[in-house]
């Protein structure tokens, strides 16, 4: 029959085709194009056409102390924020896993920071943090405690930003872990109780190992996001004071859209891409150890 022609024979290729084209155009192409630009000296301020210069942009970036500082800050911010979020998020999830009155209302409250726009969150926290007319220093001085410079001092700016990240994203970890807890079978608990295990023993020897894969998944999701954090930092400090909250993503933004050195900015982004990739693969292989 003529009808059972091309379409029928190739259905298995044709149906995924739109998705494949989508992925190629919108995900693979930008990455490859960034890679290409990173090997050029494309700079808008020079007014010259771009030339391919090999690894020159990479060398220039590696030599720049700002880049090395930015890497350090990126990890400091990510680790600081995600570790607190993971611990706090798990604790909240364990609390929410019990039955008590007002539980659903509490869950709803937890969701609110997640749906807030980062820029709006940044603006509100900036008002809290303002050293002269802000709420937090007012509270500190009312309690007789020394005031802090918060986001305006180079020593406190990253912890202050982490606090915002923690406020906004701890609920996400809670929700993921809560879903993990709901899926646990009750058999191990019953046998542990029969054997006379204490609740501390039960937590560390049964609950924690069983939800560890879930927690690690949540950590991967959060950490990949935190490594690339841009919105909150840009809205609150734009990398300042000085460069003291400039993470890799902020630096790449500045180099591309304020300095217009597209080659170097692309090189920075390739480094960031590699860091995120290596980190994710590392955590994923750690996750495998906990799977049965």
């Amino acid at each position, binding site marked *: 029959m003529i009808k059972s*022609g*091309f*379409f029928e024979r190739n259905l298995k290729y044709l149906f995924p085709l739109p998705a494949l084209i989508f992925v190629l155009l919108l995900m693979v192409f930008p990455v490859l194009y960034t890679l290409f630009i990173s090997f050029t000296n494309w*700079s*808008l*301020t*020079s*007014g010259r056409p771009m030339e391919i210069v090999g690894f020159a942009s990479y060398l220039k970036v590696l030599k720049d102390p700002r880049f090395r500082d930015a890497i350090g800050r990126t990890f400091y911010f990510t680790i600081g924020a995600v570790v607190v979020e993971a611990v706090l998020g798990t604790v909240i999830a364990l609390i929410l896993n019990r039955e008590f009155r007002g539980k659903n209302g509490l869950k709803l409250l937890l969701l609110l920071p997640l749906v807030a726009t980062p820029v709006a969150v940044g603006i509100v926290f900036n008002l809290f943090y*303002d*050293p*002269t*007319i802000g709420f937090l220093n007012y509270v500190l001085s009312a309690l007789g405690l020394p*005031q802090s*410079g*918060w*986001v*305006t*001092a180079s020593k406190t*700016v990253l912890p202050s930003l982490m606090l915002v990240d923690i406020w906004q994203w701890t609920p996400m970890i809670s929700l993921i872990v809560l879903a993990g807890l709901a899926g646990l079978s009750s058999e191990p608990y019953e046998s542990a109780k029969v054997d006379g295990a204490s609740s501390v023993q039960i937590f560390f020897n049964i609950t924690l190992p069983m939800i560890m894969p879930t927690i690690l998944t949540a950590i991967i999701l959060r950490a990949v996001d935190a490594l690339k954090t841009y919105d909150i930092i840009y809205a609150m*400090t734009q990398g*300042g*004071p*000085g*460069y003291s909250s400039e993470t890799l993503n902020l630096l790449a933004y*500045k180099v591309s*859209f*304020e*300095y*217009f*050195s597209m080659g170097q900015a692309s090189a920075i982004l390739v480094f960031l891409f590699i860091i995120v990739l290596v980190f994710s693969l590392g955590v994923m292989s750690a996750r495998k150890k906990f799977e049965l």
Partner: protein
Amino acid sequence: MKRVLVVLLIITLSFSLFAQGASDKGAKKEEIRVLLANHPYGELLKAKIPEFEAKTGIKVNVESLQEAQLTQKLTTEFATGSSTVDVFMTRPLQEGLLFIKNGYYQGLGAYDFADYPDNSVDVGRKDGVVYIVPLITEWQVMYYRKDLFAKAGIKVPTDFVELEAAAKALTKDGVAGFGSRGQGAAAVTQLSSFLYNHGGNYLENGVAVFDSPGSIDGLRYYGRLLGNYGPQGVGSMSWENLMPVFQAGKLAMWTDASVFLDQVVDPTKTAIPAEDVGVAQLPRGPKGDSPFIVVSWGMGMSSKSKNPDAAMEFLKWATSEELAVDAMLKNIPMARDSAWKNAKVREMMHPGIIATQAHAAQNGYPYDRPFMSAVGQARDLIGEVIQETINTKGTSTRLEALAKEKAAAVNELLKADGEYGGK
């Protein structure tokens, strides 16, 4: 296989049908795309655009953006060749050189520049062609609290020695005596007059000189004032952060651009009565009396405009004398000479604005930042020196060395862009 080809052919043909439809629609009515800044003049234009549309039949699609985002949007659109912008507000000192060099602006041979001061037109001129219509001028002024001065029994400072003494005397009871931008790159423009008044500068003949003795004196003075008498956290503050502090009554003197007066005394944002807020000229320094006075905003036309006639018509209207007078009546300082001579304007404007403008126009210096293509990066480099001097209250022992290092880095940028030595 044939079937597939037929289907593809039909799809391709129908695409061109849609395209036809689009161009038909465009031919009926002229349309232009205009990018404005979130600036009082941008707001004024937006409100008046319906009048322009009614008069000319040209449809105007407006977008408003913050200044930094505006530069970024324009640059990326132009650089990637995807731009459909026809007319836009532009900052001559920030992106002017870059845009001229890359051919983003349309030369404005058909525009009449007779009503503008020469030095403000020169900023947008290259090889005899003018690319930018000057729109707004800004100069440095000092906002101060008349009531606090009266209470302390001191008069408004006229030189830097008096300024420091006044700042010291007024720093008490939770009020900071003196504020100005401290956040590195943002502070570059406000520091400029302090350099000029100490005999320093950012660039001279296309070479970085902010490590010269005069410049270092200016940097130390600025750091000393802000470090000792500035509000807490001043090292990370730009005007957006300083204004609320001034409005909350926690700042006695604040130097910044002249455009902010209306916002400073806006009764919905401050409890300080307008009559308690004074506007004075920046005090003179030991080696000069030259506050910056710059064309902070201009208007340009895209060289890729598909509707150059309609775009030109809009440009002429948006920079017209009539609108300039309207803006002046709202305390927006315009670049047109005639607007300043208008009798109604002189009657309505704040006397402090008129007096400081007259002083700056006569003695001022037409740049407030290093005038170069890589100005964004240069501002960050100079910002590092500003940060150092504020953090050490002007006493840093490595300030000279740091300034020298950063000046060398700025010279490298000038060389890389072929602008070193004023080429």
